[in-house]
């Protein structure tokens, strides 16, 4: 397609971290060591107003743990009443039936819960929180009971890549219709713990081939991947809105103080939504421009897959090399 900004006057999604505070210390977390001042509710509503004005259709609260902020409900209600489609990702610890009903009442369209293993002990150890599996599953059931759409997010790593089918079965058992098999990011604690958690490129290739085969045979569950490196596989036939990473093209990330980064995994601030003109950031940011027009570097130069994968995950390349244009370290080619 033509240059992203020729078509899109704003991103489709803002992934919004209201707070980096969290009740968990997960092994892979990109943000556990982040510290950032948080906006007051009045300023958060101003941010919502800007997003509405810019016609951003979706916001997804992440974190940190979104439910840590007591005014999440007020924020979500304000945003949904102004026409935004509101969702979030949570670890599920604070998500009982009362909370699920409140989330539904204030207009959440869907809620995603992170579950990394169908074995409670494995999940709890990964999340460094005894009892977290049970509460996460209870959260899924609570969402089902109140009639709020649930999704399940599983970050693929060495602890679960050979047992992803069991995760799909777990989703089925608890009324989940969509499972995100997220790719492992080498950011924050994910970078520190990379050696224990990350797969080798050959293992990633084998995982995706297997997962794609399962996806093609599955019709009762939507299985989603968000990893641009997968586009280099001929078996991957999905039509995506943009080539390569979607961050900076279809989505942006908001930090708790209103700073904008291309995505949560790239700690490069391109502006502040409350202090600068959003359109200037979206159309003119040199960082965003560079991410939208990546140059084939290293082994990507001359690679026949580059047109499709655009060098793979920009966040991973940046985290490991400091350069957006370097090849994704997960690439098997």
């Amino acid at each position, binding site marked *: 397609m033509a240059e992203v900004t*020729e*078509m*899109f*006057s704003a991103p*489709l999604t803002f992934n919004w971290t209201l707070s980096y505070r969290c009740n968990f210390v997960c092994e892979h977390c990109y943000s556990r060591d982040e510290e950032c001042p948080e906006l007051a509710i009045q300023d958060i509503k101003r941010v919502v107003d800007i997003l509405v004005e810019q*016609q951003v*259709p*979706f916001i997804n609260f992440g974190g940190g743990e979104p439910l840590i902020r007591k005014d999440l409900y007020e924020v979500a209600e304000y945003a949904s009443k102004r026409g935004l*489609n509101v969702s979030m990702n949570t670890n599920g610890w604070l998500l009982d039936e009362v909370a699920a009903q409140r989330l539904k009442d204030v207009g959440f369209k869907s809620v995603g819960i992170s579950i990394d293993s169908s074995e409670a002990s494995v999940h709890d150890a990964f999340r460094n929180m005894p009892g977290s599996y049970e509460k996460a599953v209870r959260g899924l059931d609570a969402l089902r009971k109140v009639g709020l759409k649930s999704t399940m997010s599983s970050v693929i790593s060495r602890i679960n890549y050979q047992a992803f089918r069991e995760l799909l079965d777990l989703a089925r058992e608890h009324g989940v219709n969509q499972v995100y098999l997220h790719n492992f990011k080498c950011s924050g604690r994910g970078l520190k713990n990379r050696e224990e958690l990350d797969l080798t490129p050959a293992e990633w290739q084998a995982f995706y081939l297997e997962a794609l085969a399962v996806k093609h045979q599955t019709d009762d569950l939507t299985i*989603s991947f968000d990893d641009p490196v997968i586009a280099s596989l001929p078996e991957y036939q999905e*039509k995506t*809105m943009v080539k390569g990473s979607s961050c900076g093209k279809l989505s942006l990330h908001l930090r708790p103080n209103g700073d904008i980064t291309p995505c949560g995994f790239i700690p490069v601030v391109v502006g502040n939504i409350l202090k600068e003109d959003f359109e200037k950031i979206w159309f003119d940011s040199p960082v965003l421009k560079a991410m939208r027009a990546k140059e084939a570097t290293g082994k990507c130069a001359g690679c026949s897959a580059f047109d499709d994968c655009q060098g793979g995950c920009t966040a991973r390349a940046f985290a490991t090399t400091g350069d957006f244009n370097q090849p994704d370290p997960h690439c098997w080619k």
Partner: protein
Amino acid sequence: MNNPLRSPDIVWRVEKRRQAEVLKALEAGEDVDDSGTVILLQSGMMHQLNLVGGLIWQQCDGQQTLAAIAAELAREFSVEQEEVESDVDEFVTDLKERGWLING
């Protein structure tokens, strides 16, 4: 009522900057039939409507009859209503078949 209504399952927006550019190109006599100005998002898929389709789409609020939509389109492009009626009818029928429009 059979007035066309946008499906609530579809998220959409007018790409205003894009639309302005397409209008400019139209005034310059360029063919803009394949230039999207409205995006529709459904189940993770994006579809685009061109200028004419986008203008029809924006009027499909369940209140406007096909004739009223055609009249508005004719006024927008300074043509006779009869000239656009069949286009409007065809477009709305197509989008109803896709489930993007429903009966209001």
